[in-house]
């Protein structure tokens, strides 16, 4: 083939293909507004009591729960909960479990397996070694979507995202396909937090690339839930598990998990404009994120963040925390010992003598002052409220445990429902009254701990 002919041919093909791709992706622009508050007020909210429930789990491990408000799907009083459960994270017996929760009574259906690795293998015609991170949500047209990550080779960093849609009974799945998000064998894309819904029935799904530098992407879907295009929203490194919420019909806010100890663990917030087409530079917050999933949510009272705040607890805070856990500690026979300042002696002995789930996490930090106790990063799950542009105020403790992590939120007035992994053995769902969220009374929250 002559060079001139080759040059003309590739030029013509590239221009023609670019036009064709561009017309399909509609200039890689999102042309639909964000759907604002999709929550429906609970009609039978007789009780305004805060309450919680631990979902029965037949497996040793349960993790990474996600909830979907089914109000948009015509089941106003129900929440769908999904999570992965098995003998251990990444094991072959891990399944995606589903349960329906009644918003009023917090009663729930027995968890049912809706997907496992064999089923995903059959759906996708690919060898799947493990499954995880289920994400479920209802779109503006009432359809309920499920995304899961599946791994064929290696660890989570080689995951691919698989897309499903629930059939109207909300129990059976229809496989939509594997999301093609990357150039390198489509490896290492994961999903964790729910999307921002679009008015046209589409959605903007936050996903992340976990191999090497780890970065955040927004995937835009059309009204038929087909992937249109992806946008890399910033040039920050080592950012994972973005959580995005709509501020109004055209702007949004995105919070990201910090991987490893990047930037001294300082978490970033990023604002989008023009329905996700324009992204401002990320700004530093006063929040430290120690490589744990966080979630943003919005109520009529403001913008909130649930985040694991690894922290150094001083003696005063510890004492105040102990008072709030008095009942549990008495039950464990530890309260008097702690009040009599025997805790330090106990801590100086073998750490593993503390099998009790509240205290096993308290470790004395020998490098620091003797009165400082170091709490592992995922031991406390806290609620923060956004006060200024990037400043959050810590307002409450949601849970203290060996591990309380991977929060998910559904706002359904007058409540906010929060699900999270409890010691990675169970999923706990907590219902809090939106009006009481700003209360800084730690006792009331720990009261809801029980």
């Amino acid at each position, binding site marked *: 083939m002559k060079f001139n002919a080759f040059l003309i041919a590739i030029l013509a093909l*590239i221009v023609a293909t670019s036009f064709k*791709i561009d017309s399909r992706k509609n200039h890689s622009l999102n042309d639909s507004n964000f759907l604002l508050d999709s929550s429906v007020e609970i009609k039978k909210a007789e009780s305004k009591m805060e309450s919680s429930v631990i979902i029965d789990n037949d497996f040793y491990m349960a993790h990474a729960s996600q909830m979907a408000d089914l109000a948009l799907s015509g089941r106003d009083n129900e929440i769908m909960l999904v999570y992965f459960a098995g003998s251990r994270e990444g094991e072959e017996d891990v399944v995606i479990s589903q349960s329906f929760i009644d918003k009023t009574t917090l009663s729930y259906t027995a968890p049912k397996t809706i997907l496992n690795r064999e089923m995903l293998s059959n759906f996708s015609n690919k*060898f799947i070694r493990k499954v995880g991170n289920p994400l479920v949500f209802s779109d503006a047209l009432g359809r309920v979507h499920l995304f899961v990550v599946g791994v064929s080779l290696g660890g989570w960093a080689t995951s691919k995202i698989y897309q499903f849609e629930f059939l109207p009974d909300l129990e059976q799945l229809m496989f939509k396909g594997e999301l093609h998000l990357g150039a390198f064998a489509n490896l290492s894309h994961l999903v964790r937090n729910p999307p921002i819904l679009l008015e046209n029935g589409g959605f903007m799904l936050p996903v992340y690339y976990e191999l090497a530098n780890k970065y955040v992407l927004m995937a835009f879907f059309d009204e038929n839930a087909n992937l249109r295009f992806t946008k890399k929203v910033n040039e920050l490194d080592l950012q994972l598990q973005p959580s995005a919420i709509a501020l109004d019909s055209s702007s949004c806010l995105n919070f990201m998990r910090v991987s490893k100890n990047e930037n001294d663990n300082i978490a970033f917030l990023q604002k989008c404009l023009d329905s996700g087409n324009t992204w401002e530079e990320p700004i530093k917050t006063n929040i430290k994120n120690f490589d744990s999933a966080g979630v943003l949510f919005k109520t009529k009272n403001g913008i909130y963040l649930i985040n694991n705040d690894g922290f150094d607890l001083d003696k005063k805070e510890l004492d105040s925390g102990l008072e709030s856990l008095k009942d549990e500690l008495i039950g464990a026979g530890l309260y008097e010992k702690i009040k009599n300042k025997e805790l330090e002696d106990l801590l100086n002995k073998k750490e593993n003598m503390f099998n009790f789930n509240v205290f096993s996490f308290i470790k004395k930090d020998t490098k620091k002052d003797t009165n400082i106790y170091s709490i592992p990063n995922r031991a406390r799950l806290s609620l923060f409220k956004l006060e200024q542009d990037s400043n959050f105020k810590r307002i409450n403790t949601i849970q203290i445990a060996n591990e309380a992590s991977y929060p998910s939120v559904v706002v359904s007035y007058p409540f906010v429902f929060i699900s999270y992994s409890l010691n990675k053995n169970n999923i706990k769902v907590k219902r809090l009254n939106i009006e009481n969220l700003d209360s800084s009374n730690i006792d009331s929250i720990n009261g809801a701990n029980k």
Partner: protein
Amino acid sequence: MIGSIIVSMFICFAITDLFKLEKKFKFILLFILLVAIALPIYRFSYNVPEVLYAFFDSPSPLCVILCIYFIVNFFVEKAPKIESNAFVVIAIFGFLFYINYMGFLGPSIYHSNVVIQGLFAFIFALSIGLVSKNMRLLIVGALCFSALNPQISLIESLICPYLWIFSCFYCLILGFKFISKSMQRSKNV
């Protein structure tokens, strides 16, 4: 999946080609290898193409066309060979593209708009075409795939991990050959 089957077949042909055997034995070896890749791997219900597809996704159209070209070359002895420089260009561009994609080098080309992607694809295709006359038609063929199926982006029609890794190995072998030749020459001098 078809792409993965063709790549697997290419591997069989390439392995057979490594051995200097009589034609009859070559075909026996080829037949054995082709049967082997079609059978499920021991204690694993998937065969080689299925495993390749699960792990590394579909190969790029250029990679598939090149594999077909090599397979045809196996039977047609006087067919023109692909110039080595083409693989050097693929290895270099692939390295730059994947490093960029992984977030190590500048803003992402893959996640940018079609103009930037098109520009990169054009420079890439042009560079290969400049150093390899025999690759020109294959590149046009690969771009036709992308034109017919917009799900395959322009860049992904020209490069994939299979082709890039193959090109890197090819360059490595070329490098070793060059060094050993240079050493022999210096010994002779």
